[in-house]
């Protein structure tokens, strides 16, 4: 029980990552694959935040000088996640534009049918 309560965050975020990976590996639809990538990205971002989390911590923002920094969570993972989210948005935008063009050319989003290029 104590294991579950102390690692519940990690279990959650790695479940998301694994679900995302499964979707990417198994689903043939390009849009679903993109959703899978995003699920995985969300899981990774959660993981990074969790790394810096301490039990009952507060946001690392001072609104008055009297506040003590001891109870604050680690600010670095939050900055890293900001970067990771923006990168995720960039990849998502590019992926969707590619999906639009793929649909224009092939009339389908089924990756099994898009096979102009082969090894």
């Amino acid at each position, binding site marked *: 029980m104590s294991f579950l309560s102390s690692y519940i965050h990690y279990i959650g975020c790695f479940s998301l*990552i694994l679900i*995302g*990976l499964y979707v*990417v590996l198994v689903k043939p639809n*390009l849009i679903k*694959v*993109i959703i899978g*990538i995003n699920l*995985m*990205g969300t899981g*990774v971002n959660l*993981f*990074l935040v969790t*790394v810096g989390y301490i039990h009952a911590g507060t946001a690392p923002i001072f609104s008055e000088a009297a506040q003590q920094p001891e109870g604050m969570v680690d600010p*670095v*993972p939050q900055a*890293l996640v900001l*970067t*990771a989210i923006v*990168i995720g948005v*960039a*990849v998502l935008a*590019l*992926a969707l534009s*590619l*999906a639009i*063009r*793929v649909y224009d*050319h*092939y009339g389908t989003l089924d990756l099994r049918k*898009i096979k*102009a*290029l082969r*090894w």
Partner: protein
Amino acid sequence: MVSPILLIAVPLGLAFAIPVLGLASKRVPRYVPVIAMLFNLVVSVSLLPHALKAPIVVRTAGWAPPYSIHLVAGPLGVLLSSLIALIGLLVAVYGIDYIREGAKVKYQILYILMLVGATGVVLTGDIFNLFVFFEVLCISSYALVAYRGDSTGVEAGAKYLIQGAIGSGLVLIGIGLVYGTFGTLTMADIAANVSSVGSFRLFVSLAFLITGFGVEAAIFPLNGWLPDAHSSAPSSISAILSGIAIKAGLYAIARVVYTVYGASSILPFLAVLGIVTLLIGEMCAFGQEDIKRLLAFSSIGQMGLILFALALASATGISGAVFLIVSHGLAKALLFLASGYMIYRTGSRDISSLNGIGKRMPIMSLCFTVGAFSLIGLPPFVGFASKFTIVRAVLGTGSTFFITLLAIGLIGTVIEGAYFLRIVQGFYFKPAPEDSPEQTEGKVPFSALVPVGLLAVLILTIGLFPGIVGRVLGPAADDLLDRTAYVQHVMGD
């Protein structure tokens, strides 16, 4: 001495300025990459003597490492950034007239940013910053593979993007594990603390990092995207992707394995992977009918050989690997650039349609031949010197394991020789196909002849006088191998 940070800041600023310049004049943007890369080349080369004395550590935001991001311009980093700037400059000159369709201004922006990403990867000293620049490199290559919006480009771009995005996710998990364990992101700081934590978690994080970077480096089971992406992109982009981008992935792996983790126990595994990659790449290349796909598969093979040489863990081995990075970068860029105008001329990418082109395009064919011979490893070209260094390093280790692997790897080189000689034979000794339409647009402009010719001259010159590069190779190998010196330079005392 100029600050190495300008190697990133100045091209970035020029890229940011292109949209405004493009509004003012349609012709100006195509010359901006040339200016940016010329600046980088001059600065990189002028930094080289300083970097050879001691790695230059550049702080950002005024805080000492590990409290801020810093750049480490060591011999290896500056050598690679010079290589990136050199190839980038020549390909930028080539691109002035080569790019004829699609969003031309946007091509130039993405082109600069891709090279900025590669430069950042080889210079940074912070593992998360490495990831950010890696993403700059990767995302601009996804966009460049597909930027014309044609069917093959889009399909290759989508495949590349899916695999690359998964790879980046894995890298990020690895970085999270590292940060959770050590509470730091500075590579030197991690390297100083690595021995203090239980080894299994280190192994898992290292596995995530290698797998993630391995996607971009096209190591064997992760290289499905490469032949499509490299063959569907415009030839100038293929030259950069093959010549520089995949090497950035390999550099990241080498930096993490050697400097950060000092993980010598996984090296035999990497050596085997390298040889498998080499054999698969060369065997697939042998059966190709499409010239650009053939060159792409040959890149996979060469990456395998570089990985194998990196895994030798001896100073000579790593010198050989870095030398091969240089020689393969020059040769593969030359081959893609030369084939670009041959394809324009014949209107087809089939190898058989290139028969007899030696008479119609004598200079391009001659340069292509030089590049091909250098890749095979024939003297007096630079490929011979680099491959010879690797063979010497393997014999120097004296281990039966590595010698056996090398013997298997030599089969790959023989296959490589066979298919390149077949192409060159076709150029000169086979009659041109009867029905080939003479494309008028295939006239080779001056801006394409200069870079192709210069690359051929460089390959020959460095091949005849390997000392030009050889002087840097030893310190570059030490840069990677000598962890204590690296930590000392970055962290101070």
